[in-house]
């Protein structure tokens, strides 16, 4: 009886210190098992030659940095994938100004505007698989709407997805469709919370049009721009679904990106090279960590500013 009393007092005295950990435990355990440990495991697997059968310890062959050496010096497909990742990253960013442009176009209060806003946002809600299918048909050399349009203007039909020089751009364009919708909604929300006094004051000073946008509006939209940048960069480096559906990496591997190439190496008919795949994943991870690090640093600055 005495001990339970002591125990209770001990809990009571430390309640505020213990409670957060009790609340964190289930989430932390799940996250550790499925996200944190696998990252380290992938690092380890990348040092092995392993076909995924049996356990890594008994069936894998330790080969040190050999996977990385091969990737970085002798693998042309890796180079193409990395280069395509860069194209994705650069061109995908176009969705930010495009989204801003549409948001400015739609930021009015006419009748039915709410419905228009939802309809413009539509592409983001449907799955990338469906977007991919829709755009595959859109580009179809025989009867696609795309060739209908360029034929109407007087161009020869183009087989966008069948042409190694065009395929990646074709897929990126498809990706821009939902991503622009996403950036649009971020900017619409941002435009909603503009400070009317600042805008009116600038207007009285004679600011308008582009100058007004650049000097008065955009600085106020900075939080929206930051989030748009984060989600667009992450989205571009994560691109997988569209490539898988629209080109399956082809033609001749010309539209692969690292995420797709990794999948192909480790889990497709091209074989089960888990070690090699893991090495590709590690490189992609390190590239993304540069951006993630930057985002976290920015958020840390914000935290410090609000707390201290």
């Amino acid at each position: 009886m005495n001990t339970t009393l002591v125990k209770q007092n001990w809990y009571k005295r430390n309640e505020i210190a213990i409670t957060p950990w009790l609340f964190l435990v289930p989430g932390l355990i799940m996250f550790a098992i499925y996200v944190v440990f696998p990252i380290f495991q992938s690092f380890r697997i990348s040092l092995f030659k392993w076909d995924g059968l049996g356990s890594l310890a008994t069936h894998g062959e330790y080969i040190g940095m050999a996977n990385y050496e091969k990737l970085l010096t002798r693998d042309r497909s890796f180079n193409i994938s990395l280069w395509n990742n860069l194209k994705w990253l650069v061109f995908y960013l176009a969705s930010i100004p495009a989204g801003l442009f549409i948001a400015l176009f739609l930021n009015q209060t006419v009748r039915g505007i709410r419905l228009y806003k939802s309809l413009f946002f539509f592409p983001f809600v449907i799955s990338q698989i469906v977007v991919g299918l829709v755009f595959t048909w859109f580009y179809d050399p025989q009867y696609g709407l795309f060739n209908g349009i360029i034929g109407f203007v007087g161009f020869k039909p183009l087989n966008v997805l069948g042409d190694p020089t065009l395929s990646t751009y074709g897929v990126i364009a498809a990706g821009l469709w939902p991503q622009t919708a996403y950036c649009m909604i971020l900017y619409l929300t941002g435009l909603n919370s503009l400070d009317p006094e600042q805008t009116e004051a600038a207007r009285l000073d004679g600011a308008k049009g582009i100058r007004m946008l650049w000097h008065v509006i955009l600085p106020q939209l900075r939080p929206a721009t930051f989030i748009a940048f984060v989600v667009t960069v992450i989205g571009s480096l994560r691109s997988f679904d569209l490539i898988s559906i629209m080109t399956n990496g082809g033609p001749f591997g010309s539209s692969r990106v690292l995420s797709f190439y990794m999948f192909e190496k480790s889990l497709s008919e091209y074989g089960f090279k888990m070690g090699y795949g893991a090495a590709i994943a590690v490189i992609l991870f390190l590239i993304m960590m540069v951006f993630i690090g930057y985002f976290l640093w920015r958020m840390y600055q914000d935290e410090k500013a609000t707390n201290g």
Partner: protein
Amino acid sequence: MFPKPIEKSSRTWQLGYQALLPTVMLLWLAPLLAVALFSIRPDSDFLVGNYWGWPSSFEMTKNYGMVFGSAMPRYIMNSFLITIPTVIGAVALSCMTGFALGVYKFRGNLLIFFMFIAGNFVPFQILMVPVRDLTLDIGLYNTKTGLVLFHIAFQTGFCTLFMRNFIKALPHELIEAARVEGIAEWRIFWFVVLPLMKPAIAALSVLIFTFIWNDYFWAIVLTQGENAQPVTAGITSFNAQFRAMYHLMSAGSIVAALPPVLMFFLMQKHFIAGLTLGAVK
């Protein structure tokens, strides 16, 4: 307000704007409208090359009937059975983690918070091989449960980010007042904080529903075949079965895309609140 309200501009520009809106919208949605048009055409239209003209007959019932007669309903059912438990699990876990990180000051608080955020942004491929192995080892490969467990864990990262920021913005005096009354901490969570979190829970639920419904990568990594695969993965088998039958493939795509679309239109406000990560108010 920026740009200048249209009511304050000239009459011509007002009319021009009213005409421009539907035009731009139709162009924006053209690829989708094309698919909708395909999905109600008869088979014969494609054979004679009538892709863009007026359909020779409207075969909506027949085409969509075919879709529902295939394995599609199975896949859609799977999608629901994967998506709904994930939403419940991830929201429940993150209400707790968000509460812990948003209310208490302790060493490592920010570190854990940043770990959740960073984890949420990593490429899926760095997790792929170990997660697939783990799922195989515990005998959950090719089951809905295996997929759900992973999704819950991974989405906890994003949900924690959202919930923690939401809780942090709540008035702290409420919690202080409850403490002064001597109410136990877990009761504060249950009776004080949780009721205030309803809008955040709604926003996250809609958003996670859409994310998980639209997941393709993990579906093909962790499942195969009709008994466990969700509709995003199922549609590729559906399309293989009806290769080059564009009226059916279009109808199938529309059916697959419908649930998140409905969700979005019904819960629009919450959806948008979720998307902006609660950061753009």
